[in-house]
C-alpha cells in the first residue's frame, strides 16, 4: 500500500508534507493530550507554507494523522467553500492525494475553524479544530508561567470572577464564542472560537476532538464520551444563542446555527445555515 501510494503523491514532498520526526513529536503530544483531557500539551510547532495564526496548529495535527485511506473534509465557519477551507484542502490534497468530501458523514477526518458540523459526529471520526488562543485564562492573566501554575493548582477563581462581573454589569454572560468549559471536572478549557451553540456538542460526544494551536504551540484533546460542562452558576444556567422565530432562507431549518446576512442595497436582513453542507443536504433531500 505504501509503495503504491508513493507513486501517486507529489515527489517534491514527504507524504503529508511534514518530515517523519515532526510527525512523531506531534503524535506523542496527541497521545498525551488524549490521556489528559483538556490539558494543553506543549509541542514544537513547525513552519508551514502559511502564516501562523491561519490554522497551522490544525494543519499540523491533520498532517500527522492523515493516511491514504482517510477521507478529508475541511470547513471554515461552517463553509466548505471559503478561502481558508479550500486552500487547506488543496494543500493537504497536494501532498497526500487523499479523497476529499463535503459530506460530513463520509469524512473520517474533519478539519474545522470556528464550527462543529450540525450532523452529530460518530465513533471513529476525528474533528481537528484550529485554535488561535488556546489558553482560557489568558483574558484574566497575561503571563504564561502564571496560567500554567493556575492550571496546576486548579485555581480558576479569576475566570469565575469574570463571568460574575459580566452578570453584574450586563445581567447576562456576554461571552459569545470561546466560551470556557470544564473538562472531566479538572481543566478549564477553551473550546476554540466556536459559538456557544456548539459547546454542548463537545459533551459526551462519540467522536474524538483534537485542538491544535500552531502559533501558541499547544495541542489538547477531548476523547469520546468525556464530560465537558460549560461554566455557569447554579442560579444562572448556561444558555446557547437563540434563533427563535428565524429559519434558514435556503433550506428552512430552524434548529441550526444561523448566519445573519445583510443586503446593503435593499436593507434586507435574512438568515441562512452556517453549515453549508448540512444546508445543501437538506435542500437536496427535499427535492
Amino acid at each position: 500500500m505504501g509503495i503504491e501510494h508513493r507513486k501517486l503523491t507529489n515527489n517534491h514532498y514527504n507524504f503529508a508534507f511534514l518530515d517523519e520526526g515532526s510527525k512523531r513529536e506531534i503524535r506523542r503530544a496527541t497521545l498525551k493530550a488524549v490521556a489528559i483531557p483538556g490539558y494543553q500539551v506543549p509541542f514544537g510547532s513547525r513552519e508551514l507554507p502559511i502564516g501562523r495564526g491561519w490554522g497551522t496548529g490544525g494543519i499540523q495535527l491533520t498532517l500527522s494523522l492523515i493516511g491514504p485511506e482517510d477521507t478529508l473534509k475541511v470547513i471554515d465557519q461552517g463553509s466548505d467553500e471559503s478561502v481558508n477551507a479550500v486552500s487547506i484542502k488543496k494543500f493537504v490534497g497536494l501532498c497526500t492525494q487523499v479523497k476529499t468530501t463535503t459530506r460530513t458523514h463520509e469524512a473520517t477526518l474533519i478539519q474545522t475553524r470556528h464550527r462543529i458540523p450540525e450532523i452529530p459526529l460518530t465513533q471513529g471520526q476525528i474533528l481537528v479544530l484550529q485554535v488561535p488562543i488556546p489558553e482560557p485564562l489568558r483574558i484574566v492573566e497575561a503571563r504564561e508561567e502564571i496560567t500554567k501554575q493556575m492550571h496546576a493548582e486548579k485555581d480558576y477563581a479569576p475566570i469565575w470572577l469574570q463571568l460574575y462581573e459580566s452578570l453584574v454589569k450586563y445581567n447576562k454572560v456576554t461571552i459569545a464564542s470561546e466560551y470556557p468549559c470544564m473538562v472531566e471536572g479538572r481543566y478549564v478549557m477553551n473550546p476554540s472560537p466556536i459559538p456557544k451553540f456548539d459547546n454542548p456538542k463537545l459533551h459526551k460526544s462519540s467522536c474524538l476532538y483534537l485542538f491544535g494551536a500552531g502559533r501558541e504551540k499547544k495541542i489538547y484533546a477531548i476523547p469520546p464520551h468525556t464530560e465537558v460542562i460549560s461554566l455557569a452558576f447554579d442560579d444562572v444556567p448556561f444558555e446557547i444563542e437563540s434563533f427563535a422565530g428565524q429559519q434558514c432562507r435556503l433550506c428552512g431549518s430552524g434548529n441550526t446555527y444561523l448566519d445573519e446576512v445583510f443586503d446593503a442595497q435593499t436593507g434586507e436582513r435574512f438568515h441562512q445555515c452556517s453549515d453549508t453542507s448540512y444546508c445543501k443536504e437538506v435542500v437536496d433531500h427535499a427535492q
Partner: protein
Amino acid sequence: MISTLTKKNNFDIVFDSQKVFRIILEAMSNPAKIIDLGEHTDDLFCAYPAFLATAMTLLDNEVSYHVCGNDPLAGEIASLTLAKQDRIEAADFVFVFAPDEIEKVISSAKYGTLADPQKSATLIIYDDGDPIHPLTFSGPGIDGFRTIQATSTVKAAITLRDKQEYEYPQGIDFLFISEAGELFAVPRLITVA
C-alpha cells in the same frame, strides 16, 4: 567470500507508522477496547513485531526508553529509532516483558508534575497469560462501562498503579500488547470498578 545482505525489516516508516499511530490513538481514545495491531506488523521480522512497530512509530532521538526483560528488543529499538536507553526513573517509554518487574517499574516510573503532567512515562506491557479476570473499566473514552476478560498481568498492573495514589493529572499510561499483536490502552484517568 560473498555474503548476501537481506533487508531485515520492510516496515514503511511513513505509511506503516501512520497506520500504527492511528491504531494506538484509537486505543487511547477508547480505553479497554481491544484492537488488532498484528496485521500492520507483518513487515517486521523479530520476536515481538508489535512492540517494535510501536517503538518505531513513537520513539526517536528526542525521547528515552527502558526495556525490562528483553535485551534483544532493547538493542533493536536502539538501532532502529536512535532513542536513548535510560533508567526506569527517567524513561519516557518503558517496555515490560518480565511480570515480576512490573511492581518495580510502576513504583519507579516518572509520573509528571501537576504543572507538567505530560512529563510522565508510557508503559508498554507484554500481556501474556490467560484472560481469566473480568475487569470493568470506566472513564473518559468509555460510554458508561466496558468489561473485558483480562490477564493476571493486567490486573496486577492496574492494582499496583492504583496503590501509587497519583494525584491527577499526574499518572502513568498503559498500553498492553499480546504476542498476537492485540492491543488495548488504559490511560491514567481510567478506573476499574
